[in-house]
């Protein structure tokens, strides 16, 4: 048993770090350091830079254009990418659709979609949740009826992240409403967002941003060759997708960056006549977060190395531990950062100015994204299976309750 990274792993980290340092566009890095989310084009550009290096499909096997990394290398890569901070790889393309097509896709689907997904030629979104199907995903009602060589899709999806950017949507639809079990009548379809009858409506979230959407399908005709896996067997595809390796699920790099940022800003702001960084309660809060991050870092290494040893293909319910603790830390660290900002973090002038022209900015440059990050991260314990659902998973799969 040895917690230390091997010299090879250390060298790999160094290689990733310097590649990112040399290739991440400066403007993107600077904006992200101040907490701004990357723009659509920045994400595309970064994915393409990584793809040219052979790294964008970081978790795919070599034969499909992945780098063939070990689980530890994948973890290091994601950590460095988050810590840079660089735009995150579009998970819909890389960790969701890619592995699903590799496992269940036809040769034609693989040949067409995989190279485009890893170069972000197609932006994918995920059509799973519906107004009546949140945590209880299997109750979804969007219908797909066979009509010759097409499925005709009618229904509504919700909470569809980045649907307004998306070219394609992988969707769970009900193909057999009369199946004995709800899970048995579901299929996994690939839908071109440009198809007539697809309508995307924005949902503005509490951070003021447009990230989420509703997607409506009205008589949308989808060619049958866009079915992934067998008809009515979509639930096992979805389960594979959701249970697939979740190396990056704890997103520790983000929490680390927020704590680091909190300390930086705490040197600039004051508390009772002294720099905040010298304030005891602040320091204790940082110390506690650093303890929790350290524990999670080691837990993550344990999960990753166990996953690698198991052959790396079975969903590991322990990753629910990473999801729960990881999102708690994301939330706590974003809370700390916002509290450091204090009143300067409260003005929402940015949203008003954005609509105007080149008005000069108001307030310190570190302030504008503190509250939005805090607000948006309330969703971290909701998406990807709420933390309560994660606890249900642990109960069923690990504790046997």
């Amino acid at each position, binding site marked *: *048993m*040895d*917690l*230390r*990274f*091997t010299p090879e*792993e250390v060298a790999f980290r160094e290689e990733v770090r310097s590649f990112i340092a040399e290739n991440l566009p400066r403007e993107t890095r600077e904006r992200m350091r101040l907490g701004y989310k990357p723009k659509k084009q920045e994400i595309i550009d970064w994915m393409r830079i990584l793809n040219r290096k052979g790294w964008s499909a970081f978790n795919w096997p070599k034969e499909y254009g992945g780098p063939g990394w070990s689980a*530890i290398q994948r973890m290091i890569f994601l950590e460095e990418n988050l810590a840079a901070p660089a735009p995150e790889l579009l998970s819909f393309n890389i960790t969701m659709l890619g592995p699903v097509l590799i496992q269940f896709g036809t040769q034609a689907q693989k040949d067409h979609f995989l190279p485009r997904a890893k170069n972000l030629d197609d932006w994918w979104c995920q059509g799973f949740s519906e107004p009546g199907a949140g945590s209880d995903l299997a109750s979804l009602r969007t219908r797909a009826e066979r009509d010759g060589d097409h499925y005709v899709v009618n229904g509504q999806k919700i909470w569809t992240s980045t649907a307004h950017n998306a070219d394609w949507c992988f969707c769970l639809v009900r193909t057999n409403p009369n199946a004995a079990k709800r899970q048995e009548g579901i299929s996994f379809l690939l839908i071109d967002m440009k198809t007539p009858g697809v309508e995307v409506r924005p949902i503005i979230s509490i951070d003021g941003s447009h990230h989420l959407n509703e997607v409506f399908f009205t008589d949308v005709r989808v060619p049958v060759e866009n079915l992934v896996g067998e008809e009515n067997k979509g639930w096992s595809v979805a389960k594979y997708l959701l249970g697939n390796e979740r190396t990056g699920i704890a997103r520790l790099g983000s929490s680390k960056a927020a704590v680091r940022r909190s*300390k930086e800003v705490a040197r600039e702001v004051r508390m009772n006549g002294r720099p905040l*960084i010298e304030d*005891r309660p602040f*320091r*204790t809060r*940082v*110390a*506690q977060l*650093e*303890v*929790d991050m*350290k*524990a*999670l*870092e*080691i*837990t993550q*290494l*344990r999960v990753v*190395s*166990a996953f690698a*040893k198991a052959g790396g293909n079975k969903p590991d319910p*322990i990753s629910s*531990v990473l999801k*729960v*603790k990881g999102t708690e830390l994301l939330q706590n660290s974003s809370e700390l950062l916002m509290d450091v900002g204090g009143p300067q973090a409260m003005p929402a002038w940015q949203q008003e100015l954005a609509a105007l022209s080149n008005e000069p900015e108001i307030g310190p440059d570190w302030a504008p994204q503190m509250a939005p990050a805090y607000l948006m991260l309330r969703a971290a314990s909701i998406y990807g299976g709420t933390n*309560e659902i*994660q*606890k*249900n998973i*642990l*109960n069923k799969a*690990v*504790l*046997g*309750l």
Partner: protein
Amino acid sequence: MDFDLTEDQRLLTDSVSRLLADNYGFEQRKQLLKAPTGWSETLWAQYAELGLLGLPFSEDFGGFGGSAVDVMLLMQSFGRHLVLEPYLATVVLAGTALRLAGSEEQQAELLPAIAAGERRLAFAHYERQARYDMTDLLTTAKPHGDGFLLEGAKSVVLHGDSADTLIVSARTAGGRDDAAGISLFLVDAASPGIARRGYALRDGSRAAELSFSAVQVPREALLGEQDNALPVIRRVVEAGIAAGAAEVVGAMEAMQAMTLDYLKTRVQFGKPIGENQALQHRAAEMMIALEQGRSMAMLAAMMLDEPNDAERERNISMAKVGVGQAGRFVSQNAVQLHGGIGMTEEYAIGHFFRRVMVFEHLFGDTAYHLDRLADQVA
């Protein structure tokens, strides 16, 4: 990076588990508590036979040359059974002091004897007024003839009642709270002038109050450098934290298993109480805390040999905080989920609870270590 156990480690864990499964049932342990020493001489001899008592010592001194991870695995097993024997005091604390500070002769005299189960030591450092402060020392060792004269008192000395040899810290220079001027001495526990009052701690393990009144010790009794024992004392405490953290992990495992069992079998309102989601989620949170605590105990073990002092101390403090918080969460909820039965002396949960509680208040509690970490925020 590697979390695998070696073949030797697997063998070690297996043989210890077998021994404890046969000898350390809850009822058997109750009998052991009634022994005059509060633990079992017979089992101590068996530990010696298995090589456990020399596990971390070098082979030159009759040991096994085991690593901190080996000790961690052993302590985890001990924690699952609430082992009462003075392993922490003798092998971990005194053993570490001897290994780090002992002369060739001192090590040759004591380590093989410890490994053989013939000698038992205690580490007498903390004093009543000191709480967790390592430098708050009033006990003095003044030059006297060819040696020293010890005066003072030590408090809550683990297994100080049954040790035949004491490692005692005392001021040879400086005043209260000075980092310099502290020395360690190897003292025969039967020396004239030593008074011992033994008692059980809240978990049943033994400790003692020691007082030293004009105790004469020869010059050769000095363990390590005169006036400069603090770095050694720190390392001894760190070894105690790592070992105790592993024990807490073992105790948490036992509590988690008992609690799950209870949730599945206790029926109320016509169904097992484990079917209630409020309780299920609490169980999941206990598991999450246990896994985080386990990670921290591993961190402590793997950091013990880190040569950079600041780095090592920081990580050990993080581990003490992490394990302390996990231990509290798991043990408090283990009692809660058991309901009334968890409050009773005749049920095992409360005994595990008290072991975790005692360890949290040794070697610096959660607040103490969090405060040290807060000092270092940069």
